[in-house]
């Protein structure tokens, strides 16, 4: 009998149940108005000035002689390998020369600020770490510092030092990607391979420490998620020993390479006045010669204890941005070395039972610990009402977190001041009156992360 049933069931296809929830059918296709191949018809005068890149400094030369036929509008992106994600540009060309640019963003918008209002303060880092996915630890740090500022707690010295160690390593890895993609976009393909190879050693260290290569959720309100793994000093020492020599190799490859110089010198220039007017921060601002670095001016997490220089450029072109990033890696290595040698002993989380979940072993022993564990992971901790704005220097510039609490366990409002969002706004200025062939070099040197732009 048993044989028969198995034969029967083998011949029959398994019975399936279609659990279709009403109201989830796909909506009818409705074409949107996006995709117009016109960018001139309905723009205001001020808007045109912005697109022509002549808001702050009018260096636009308008040639009335050019017939309308000679102007062409080219749509670049959102699915273009050189737009670093899903950036879309509408570019008006006059022959080979770009006259007008209109960046169109929002293709990666996932409503993270709305999501943050649904998550508790403790769950928040899981959300913000996905914004700037090349510098996730900086996003977590800005958020955690904002929550701690509202809570009025101060993390132990070791936690602060671990945060600096991790964020500076993250800055190195992010700048390495910037160098790699910058090189690839301009044609130095080997730079791409080298950059990602070196980044891998840092990501391996991150994986060992946090459990993940990206989207770590490691820096949390009240400290960090886990202590550094045993043997971390050897890993960091290996990175410190390897990278300077590798950076010298990249300099051999690019620094005085005539092709590289021709493609980057004097390309995508932005002046100091324009950079400040357009709220540009980070390496792009420093490449124009302003030595503005939040790590020096508004130090956070004890970074004022470590010695490093602020690197500035002179011309604000693609080459200077590339040099600033290379030299910032060297400065970050200095910080990492100092943190490693002076890593304080102690706890890596704040000694506050209302914020820090109890260790696993305590839950079995203590009723109190069990209650705290349960409350912290279901309801979360309450944060006193107030508002705060905390900014850190991310690899792309000022990454700020504006946090409003109304006394509940969820933020009432969480807003991230995303550096890429503001840096991208200046694309029309940097690209006006340059060659179409330089577009990709300019975008790459801005180093936009679309997850950060659209959030």
């Amino acid at each position, binding site marked *: 009998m048993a044989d028969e049933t198995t034969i029967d069931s083998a011949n029959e296809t398994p019975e399936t149940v279609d659990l279709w929830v009403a109201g989830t059918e796909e909506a009818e296709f409705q074409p*949107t108005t996006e995709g117009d191949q016109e960018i001139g018809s309905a723009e205001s005068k001020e808007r045109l000035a912005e697109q022509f890149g002549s808001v702050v400094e009018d260096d636009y030369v308008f040639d009335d002689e050019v017939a309308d036929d000679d102007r062409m509008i080219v749509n670049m992106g959102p699915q273009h390998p050189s737009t670093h994600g899903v950036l879309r540009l509408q570019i008006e060309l006059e022959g080979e020369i770009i006259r007008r640019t209109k960046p169109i963003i929002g293709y990666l918008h996932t409503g993270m600020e709305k999501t943050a209002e649904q998550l508790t303060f403790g769950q928040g880092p899981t959300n913000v770490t996905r914004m700037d996915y090349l510098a996730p630890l900086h996003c977590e740090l800005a958020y955690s510092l904002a929550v701690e500022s509202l809570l009025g707690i101060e993390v132990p010295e070791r936690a602060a030092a671990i945060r600096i160690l991790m964020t500076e390593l993250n800055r190195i890895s992010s700048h390495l990607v910037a160098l790699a993609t910058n090189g690839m976009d301009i044609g130095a393909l080997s730079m791409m391979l080298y950059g990602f190879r070196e980044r891998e050693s840092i990501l391996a260290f991150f994986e060992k420490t946090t459990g993940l290569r990206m989207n770590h959720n490691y820096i949390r309100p009240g400290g960090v998620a886990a202590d550094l793994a045993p043997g971390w000093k050897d890993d960091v020492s290996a990175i410190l020993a390897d990278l300077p020599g590798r950076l010298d190799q990249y300099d051999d490859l690019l620094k005085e390479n005539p092709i590289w110089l021709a493609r980057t010198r004097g390309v995508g220039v932005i002046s100091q006045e324009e950079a400040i007017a357009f709220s540009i921060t980070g390496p792009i601002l420093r490449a124009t010669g302003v030595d503005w670095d939040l790590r020096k001016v508004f130090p956070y997490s004890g970074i004022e204890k470590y010695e490093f220089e602020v690197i500035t450029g002179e011309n604000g072109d693609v080459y200077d941005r590339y040099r600033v990033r290379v030299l910032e890696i060297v400065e970050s290595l200095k910080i990492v070395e100092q943190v490693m040698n002076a890593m304080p002993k102690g706890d890596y989380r704040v000694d506050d039972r209302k914020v820090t979940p109890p260790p696993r072993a305590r839950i079995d022993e203590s009723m109190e610990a069990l209650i705290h564990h349960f409350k912290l992971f279901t309801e979360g901790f309450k944060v006193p009402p107030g508002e705060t*704005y905390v900014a850190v220097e991310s690899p792309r510039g000022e990454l700020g977190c504006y946090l409003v609490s109304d006394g509940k366990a969820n933020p009432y409002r969480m807003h991230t*001041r995303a550096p890429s969002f503001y840096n991208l706004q200046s694309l029309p200025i940097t690209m006006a009156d340059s060659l179409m062939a330089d577009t990709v070099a300019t975008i790459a040197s801005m180093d936009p992360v679309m997850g950060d732009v659209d959030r």
Partner: protein
Amino acid sequence: MRSGTSGQIGWSGDWEPQMNQVLAGLAEGFEDVTFSQSQGQDIASVPAESWKAFAEAAKKAGFEVCCDVTAVDWMRQRPERFEIVANLLSMRHRIRLRVSTTIGREDPTVESLTPLWPGAGFAEREVYDMFGIIFDGHPDLTRILMPDDWDGHPLRKDFGVGSVPVQFKESHKVD
């Protein structure tokens, strides 16, 4: 490449912590502006009428960067529903100032800061997109993150979070 600069702006240039002088100078022309502190950060609460005038005075006083413009929807918690917040930064004096104003739900309109700081353009478009606040004088107040044909303003508190029902299909029948 060099480190440090001789320019006026930047951390290595000459500077004095002039918070009190700068704020006192700002307060002079505006009697209806209240200054307060939250977590050690300075906040200036400005009536909506003098929003742009105060911003202009702040720019003259040395706040050359508008870091950020954002909004908070207070729904029924406060008499005026929307709070507009601009984060100003003075590189010269190395201070920050948060300027905020409130506007009601009937006519959520404030003057745009774009003529003063072109960098506020994207930020104000985002606030318009997310909260439906009109910035008077903005050159191109269109949606920036949401699709052009989107209904509603997602970051308002009365805009539902929305959820996608999970579709269970082709699941094997369990006897």
